[in-house]
């Protein structure tokens, strides 16, 4: 199986005025194609930071990161944008839809950035993606007219717009009730079965159970499995 992500000795230091905050410390991690893994850890442990690095939104302070076969440190802004657009789909805790445009246009937007499909076929794909996530009847609804669960499903359809290998979901169920959260995880399971590699950040052990593997973070470090089982959870 091909490796989608290979991270070695990643660390990330944020400079806050005079103080350095080390959000990640010597994190090594590999993701095989078709994996669904969960990242768990208390608030502030560096989960989002790790997601941002893997998602090529930020560069590590040190260490090496290979995403979809490309050395991230060697890519320029343009190539990073291209990698984000084609290989990665983001799902956020707060949905992050564009509030001014309807569900369909939100899903269309990433296709406009990558030009993988000719313009005429994009709308058809956006429709079918929204149908896949069960929103075939909500195409023209504005985000404000949708429930939290529905918004997150629009966000998942948007993440799938360019059919990326890797889906990064940062606490996707954090703002949802249990039932909606379960629906979202069901969707992730389906996507994983269809071959997408998925990383889900969560606090919820029930959610984490969907994963084939759980990575625990604490204070910016990956904990060993032994440490975790000894731990409180």
């Amino acid at each position, binding site marked *: 199986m091909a490796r989608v992500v290979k991270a070695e000795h990643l660390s990330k230091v944020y400079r806050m005025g005079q103080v350095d905050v080390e959000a990640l410390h010597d994190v090594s991690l590999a993701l095989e194609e078709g994996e669904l893994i969960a990242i768990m850890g208390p608030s502030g442990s560096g989960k989002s930071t790790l997601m*941002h690095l893997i*998602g090529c*939104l*930020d560069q590590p302070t040190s260490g090496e990161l290979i995403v979809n076969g490309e050395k991230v440190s060697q890519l320029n*802004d*343009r190539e990073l*944008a*291209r990698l*984000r*657009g*084609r290989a990665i*789909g*983001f799902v*956020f805790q707060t949905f*992050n*839809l*564009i509030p*001014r*445009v309807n569900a369909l*246009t939100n899903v*269309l*937007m*990433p296709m*406009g*950035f*990558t*030009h993988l499909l000719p*313009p005429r076929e994009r709308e058809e794909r956006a429709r079918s993606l929204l149908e896949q996530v069960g929103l075939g009847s909500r195409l023209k609804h504005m985000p404000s007219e949708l429930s939290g669960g529905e918004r997150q499903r629009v966000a998942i359809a*948007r*993440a799938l*717009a*360019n059919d990326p290998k890797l889906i990064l979901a940062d606490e996707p169920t954090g703002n949802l009730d249990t039932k909606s959260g379960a629906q979202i995880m069901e969707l992730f399971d389906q996507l994983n079965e269809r071959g997408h590699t998925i990383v889900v950040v969560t606090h919820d052990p029930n959610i984490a159970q969907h994963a084939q593997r759980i990575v625990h973070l604490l204070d910016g470090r990956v904990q060993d499995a032994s440490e975790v089982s000894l731990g409180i959870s």
Partner: protein
Amino acid sequence: MGFRETLRLSWSNIRNHKLRNSLAVLSVTIGIAAVIAVITMTTGLQSALLNTLTRDLLHADTISVTVKGNEGAFGSAQVFSQRDVKHLETLKGVKAVDVIGRVRAASLYFEGHRLLSPVVQVTTDPKFLPLDAGRPIAGPGEIVIGAGIAQSICEQQEQAAQGAKADTAKIKESCKRATQSKLLADRILGQPLRMKYINAQKKIQQSQLQIVGLIKNAQFLPHQTAYVDPSYHSDTEELGGQAVPVYTALLVKVANISKLASVKQEIEGYFDRFSSDARKLLGTGTEINVHTLANIVDEIKKNFGQVTGFLGAIAVVALLVGMIGVMNVMLITVKERTREIGIMKATGATNGNVLQLFLTEAVLICLIGAFLGVLAGMGLSVLFIKLTMMLFSGLQSIPFVFVPIWYAIAILTGLVVGVVSGVYPAWSAARTNPIKALRYE
């Protein structure tokens, strides 16, 4: 990002903040409208003024050819022949050539009294003299007279009415004042005048004439001149063994006022040569004056150019303020949509995509503003023209000068203003760090 998606996203934002963006559009509208209005109005006024000068008052499109020292009321030395006229008519840029001649030894009598000092002339250009009242002469037996002659007639009428105890100074004063008003016309039009002159047979002849028109009472028009039908003209000179009619002056009309100088040069060249009849008759000693109003026309254009420049500068300042308005709105928009920028970058937008999006928005605002500005500017001009014509009834019409290229330039200016005002906000949007943008509340 495709153009359509960019446009859709930009438009959705513009629509979403109607008030703010309407104000930005308005600020551009005002700037463009000001520029359009200034150009349209000053050009219209200039054209009206030049038209008035050209057609009615100064005949700016006419080059007069006279003998030097002989210009007063076009003098009495008659040296220009029909052959000269024919030649000038062949010059490039010449529309028509007319003559002014003098009726030989003509004197005018009103009710038996001789009028002092009038000069009786003929012209083949019926529109040469603008009239205050009445109509141009239509044939023999008719005469149009200058304000000075009209005043003399008025004085004689008053003298006759008041008899011996008349106060001459008072009458002079009131008749002079009468020439400024329409009252005089009623008394003088239709009155008979008798003309004594020498005809083609060199015999003294008398002719009964009716006054049909009053020459416009203006400073620069001859007051003591009257015009009659060209058939009264009889002066000839021996040229090539033949007696040919000769005239005191030529009036050369140019087709295009901007060609005055070049036509003038050609005329001068012609009269320098002995092939012209006038030069033959005059010999080398006497100069022939070729006079144009090119200087005056240039002066007027220069002055209008200065006024346009000055008003235009104010209008451009308005446009600049509009530009700053759009820039301000765009900066607010970019700030507000920081998170959106983060989302776009997370989903694959390049810096270029983000730049394009915000630039499109600024350009859209400015294009709408420019379009409305053109309409508003045209509206303002029409209003201004109406107002001016109401205030100054003397100007018969100020044209609405419609030049499509200005409107194209105005729209293009809108585009440029959009780019200039949008480029900094859009650039700062493009540079936004995606992580910071996603964390932005």
